[in-house]
């Protein structure tokens, strides 16, 4: 069998595949974060919590009303998105135009509240959620066994990412969004309902996180703490891609999934740190990230 650095190629191709899958989650999450940062200039520390809410919603809706996976995949993001809009309307709006750091503090506070309250209700061990019937099992790719569900994750994530990118970079609505972030007052002076636009954008960004959460529900342990650790990794991804760059967030998300995947083979202990190493190196070479616009 051919080997690279003592690891069979078949294993490596398997790891590549898994890296891409894992990267799909990063892509979705960092996309939402990039949308919110790029358009609202809000550093959304509640993003992890929104991911968690998406997953919790999926599980709780099933437990309480028997809502099935497909419906939940649509409904959970909508519910969380609406919640995001409410947050934006009552809280975030009040600090518009202030320094980044206030939005950071505010969203961090929100995350603490959400997480803390849910811990007190549901504990930290996690809730059960079983894999939807259709996705049980998997296919043999020769070099690995690919569960159907993981294949679905890639497809779903990429579709959503592409759609978002297209909307923001190529449509008129997108140009309103981009302009609104620079000088929202002036945009309003042009006759555009900026406050509404901002609420919707935040809601949308949060929805992306919740969508990732709903996607994660069948395969990861769903608990109130699931969002807190993924948060800074996702931040790192966004920064490597270039803050505010939509395509950058998606591509970097996938890339980082792969990088992390390979590290898990060659130096597993370092797999949590590798993204930060990449970040340091990238920022040394390109101060505004891989796809960021020069300041």
């Amino acid at each position, binding site marked *: 069998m051919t080997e690279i650095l003592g690891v069979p190629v078949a294993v490596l191709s398997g790891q590549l595949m898994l890296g891409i899958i894992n990267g799909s989650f990063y892509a979705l999450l960092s996309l939402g974060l990039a949308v919110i940062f790029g358009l609202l200039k809000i550093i959304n520390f509640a993003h992890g919590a929104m991911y968690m809410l998406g997953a919790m919603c999926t599980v709780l809706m099933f437990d309480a009303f028997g809502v099935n996976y497909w419906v939940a995949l649509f409904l959970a993001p909508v519910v969380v998105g609406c919640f995001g809009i409410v947050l934006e309307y009552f809280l975030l709006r009040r*600090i518009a135009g202030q320094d980044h750091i206030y939005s950071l503090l505010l969203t961090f506070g*929100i995350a*603490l509240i959400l997480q803390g*309250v849910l811990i007190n209700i549901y504990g930290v061990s996690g809730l059960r959620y079983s894999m939807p019937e259709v996705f049980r099992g998997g296919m043999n790719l020769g070099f690995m066994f690919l569960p159907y569900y993981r294949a679905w994750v890639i497809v779903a994530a990429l579709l959503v990412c592409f759609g978002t990118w297209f909307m923001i970079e190529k449509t008129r609505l997108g140009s309103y969004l981009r302009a609104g972030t620079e000088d929202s007052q002036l945009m309003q002076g042009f006759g555009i309902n900026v406050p509404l636009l901002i609420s919707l954008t935040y809601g949308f960004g949060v929805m992306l996180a919740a969508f990732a959460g709903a996607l994660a529900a069948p395969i990861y342990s769903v608990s109130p703490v699931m969002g807190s650790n993924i948060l*800074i990794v996702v931040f790192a991804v966004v920064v490597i891609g270039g803050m505010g760059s939509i395509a950058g967030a998606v591509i970097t998300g996938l890339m980082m999934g792969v990088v992390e995947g390979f590290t898990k083979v060659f130096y597993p202990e370092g797999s949590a740190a590798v993204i*930060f190493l990449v970040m340091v190196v990238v920022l040394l070479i390109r*101060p*505004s990230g891989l796809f960021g616009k020069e300041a």
Partner: protein
Amino acid sequence: MATTTTQTDIQQSIVKQQKAEQRKKQILNLVLLALLLLAPAVFYPVFLMKILCFALFAVALNLLLGYTGLLSFGHAAFLAAGSYTTGYLLSSFPGVTTEMGIVVGTAASLVLGLGFGLVAIRRQGIYFAMITLALAQLVYFFFVQAPFTGGEDGMHGVPRGYLFGMVDLSDNTAMYYFVLAVFLAGYLLVQRIVGSPFGQVLKAIKQNEPRAVSLGYNVDRYKLMAFVLSAGLAGLAGSVKTVVFQLASLNDAHWHMSGEVILMTLLGGTGTLLGPVVGAGFVVTLEYQLSQGPLGDWVDPILGAIFVLTVLAFRSGIVGEIQNFMRKNMG
């Protein structure tokens, strides 16, 4: 002629105002000192020492955040570097005295700060925050892996030792006054820095960097200097903390710690000297009180709510709001 008299008038009034402010600062310092000297009579000294350590840590961060406009999201690394270095020296080398341990711990953070600074200083805004975070994560990884830190279990039983070979620090009161002295030294140093010509340049950089460049300032060097000073002070806080608690743990290096100190600083008020001290006191006390009482399992949500409230209602922080209030009501 008329213009020159108004000129001198105005100038004099400015100087007078400065003097008045100076006096206010001194009075404030004295009040602070008196409070801290008397505090152990009322409060539990170990708890006060914890506050002082975090206050020093927050004051160090504020030198960057409040006065240079740099948001470091990796300050835990310096706290931990000071903490582990001192802990390691004091527990593994019986010949090392406490003050030596602290000095070397601080020096280690200074050096680490220089390293961080050289890498990070050219990045702007949020990229700066994130690169410091990334570097701190790498440092965290190092501390997890390095054998001498005791990994997740931490480093325990660090001896407090004797100060200058004479004062027995295992006595909490003696320890308290030592920590107080260190804290005050750090606090006054920052006060001095902020008011110094150097501090003026930092302020200028914070407000308009390109302009400062065009005035002939090599802003990178100034920022680097500020960063290193801040890292050193953070390390000092870590070193002293290790001596107080006789332990060093990974919590010190975790990014939550970097976040927490930012929160303390903001809560108290950035850009004010006393703000971080009050913020640290507030957060430490609150966490402590909450974790004891019946609300033990509600600490996080309550803290969260306080952060939300702060941002919405008291954006300039506790001290900042008080200042604003005084300004408004005193002309």
